[in-house]
């Protein structure tokens, strides 16, 4: 049984249909890259999967570990192991990063019927993860994403992912706006989290992240549908020829 099965997914935002019959199947341990031109529906896919209520699903289904993912509130999806790394992480002045992360961590544990961590236990966990992610603990003492650089925000997303240990991680253009050093840091973080139990959906416009996080599968999303799927060589092909003339292979 696949971890994530998306069938004939249709979704719209502000009355406009964006996803038009998307099919995708992801197994534990796999890394899938979703590529495509602007406006193809890449970010819509991430938002629909994580439960953003601005997106209306009009047809189709999403099954995650055998349950109907679309029936769950965003917080329940998180507790079930779904994580979205935001393309534009939100700044939340007045909420301390560590406090926020512990509230999230414990809310998820509580929802799963697990014992919550006290602050000492949590601090220990955070210190371990900081080491793996090579992130300065100075970030922890600041308000969530407030005044963070673009790179710091993206690394903070990956750091949250490391602490929350999701089963299904969706990275929405995590590479956008990063210089090469920041990109490598983010990629190192993702690679450190790859495991047989965990799946990744990497939504990206460019091929360059895939040089550092090598995917098992590459899908091309255009006009609300997956129009072509292949292995990592597909990404290189796209890099060479662009998105023009896509989908002919799939249609054939």
């Amino acid at each position, binding site marked *: 049984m696949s971890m994530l099965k998306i069938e004939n997914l249709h979704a719209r935002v502000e009355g406009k249909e964006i996803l038009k019959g998307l099919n995708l199947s992801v197994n534990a341990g796999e890394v899938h890259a979703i590529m495509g031109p602007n406006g193809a529906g890449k970010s819509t896919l991430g938002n629909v999967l*994580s*439960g*953003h*209520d601005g997106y209306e699903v009009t047809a189709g289904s999403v099954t995650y570990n055998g349950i109907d993912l679309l029936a769950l*509130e*965003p*917080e329940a*999806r*998180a*507790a079930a192991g779904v*994580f*979205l790394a*935001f393309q534009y*992480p*939100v700044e*939340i*002045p*007045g*909420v301390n990063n560590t406090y*926020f*992360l512990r*509230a*999230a*961590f414990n*809310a*998820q544990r509580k*929802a799963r019927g697990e014992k919550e961590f006290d602050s000492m236990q949590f601090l220990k966990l955070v210190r371990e993860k900081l080491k793996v992610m090579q992130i300065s603990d100075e970030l922890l003492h600041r*308000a969530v994403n407030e005044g963070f650089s673009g790179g710091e925000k993206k690394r903070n997303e990956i750091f*949250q992912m490391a602490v*929350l240990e999701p089963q299904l991680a969706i990275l929405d253009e995590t590479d956008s706006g990063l210089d090469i050093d920041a990109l490598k840091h983010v990629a190192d973080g993702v690679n450190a989290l790859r495991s047989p139990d965990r799946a990744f959906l990497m939504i990206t416009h460019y091929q360059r992240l895939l040089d550092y996080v090598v995917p098992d599968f590459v899908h091309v999303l255009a006009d609300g549908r997956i129009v072509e799927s292949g292995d990592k060589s597909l990404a290189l092909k796209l890099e060479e020829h662009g998105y023009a003339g896509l989908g002919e292979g799939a249609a054939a």
Partner: protein
Amino acid sequence: MSQPASLPLVESLLDAPLPISGIAWLDAARQENRAAFAASGLPDTRVEAWKYTALRALGQRRFARGDAAAASRAVDASTLKLPSADGPRLVFVNGVFRADLSALDALPAGLILQPLSQALLGDAEPLRFVLSRYYREAGDAFARINAASATDGVVLRVAAGVKISAPVQLVFVGAATDVELAWHLRNVIELGEGAELSLIEQHVSDTEPAQLATVVSDIELREGAQLHHTVLQNVAVATSLIRRSSVRLHARAHAVLHVLELGGALVRHDLRAELIGDGARFDTRGVFMPHGRQHIDTQLAIRHQALNTTSTSTWRGVANDRARGVFRGAIVVAPGADGSDASLSNKNLLLSPGAEIDTKPELEIYADEVKAAHGATVGQLDERSLFYLRSRGIPLAEARALLTAAFCRAVLDDLPNEALREHLSALLVAQLPA
């Protein structure tokens, strides 16, 4: 003006005999203010200062005057305890001084702290300036009835040059009685030249029955005096509480005021500051957080009357359910108050469609080289932030509480007393919708 005689509230407040002190000027002032209250009654919403706070419903209520058993009412001792406050304490129950609940032993040298009822038995002359005041404005109804009726309150003086290290705690308790009670307190606080004081003012009350309380405070800061004043208003939702605090700041005096307005049915606070000496500074930070059917109104009025005076005002309002918040921040920079710096910010959050907050910043500048900034907003919780928190597993209600607490945090951030800050933060969070 509404017909005063026809209002049950006015009638009932005038029902009790005028207190007699035997001090000629005081009895005259009481008589005069009582007559003014009787003649004009309550202001209606055509009076600018009461535009958003209608007294129609309150005007129909009757309150009994004076609690003969106030001296023996049981008071939950835990409400008197505050972290970091184990210094001098003055406690009033239903408008009456309670020696048994107060802590007045071994007051530090240079601190006078006593109930007004006692102070008037001695030399009343130092109180004359403040207590002989006649309230003449149309909106002054409650100050008038307070001036006519209050027989007790706080007298607090810090001698010149004296720095009081332990915070002084003032507690005003409304305790349950068989009848719905009205009571009045009058406070006189003065810090001498260069004196320093940290003051914690608490308002609490029992759940039932309804009460009406008025508290009028005059605070005078002589040259270079420094006051840290924290107000925690957490009365029961059946209690209506009407306060007026007037602060006068002489040269280089500095007052920092933190206010938490959480409880009450109809709550009104007129907070007036006059910066009358060069280089005086007045900083206020406040949160009002009405829920249910509560109505909380803060009227802040600051007058810059001297050179190089500074005021900063940071206020946050959060209204839930069908509650109403009102904030008016009026700053006047008078002619000659050149080089003044005044800033005011009032941001408000509506947590439900039935809630309402009316905010009105006003700025009048008649001086030169003045720096002034003011702004007010009313909005809702940011949907993107809410989704971000939920996407990390934080349930909706908890996410809303987290964001609301963060919204209010700016107000408590610079409270120097850490234990008190933690305590107030916790109270704020406890008030948030679950």
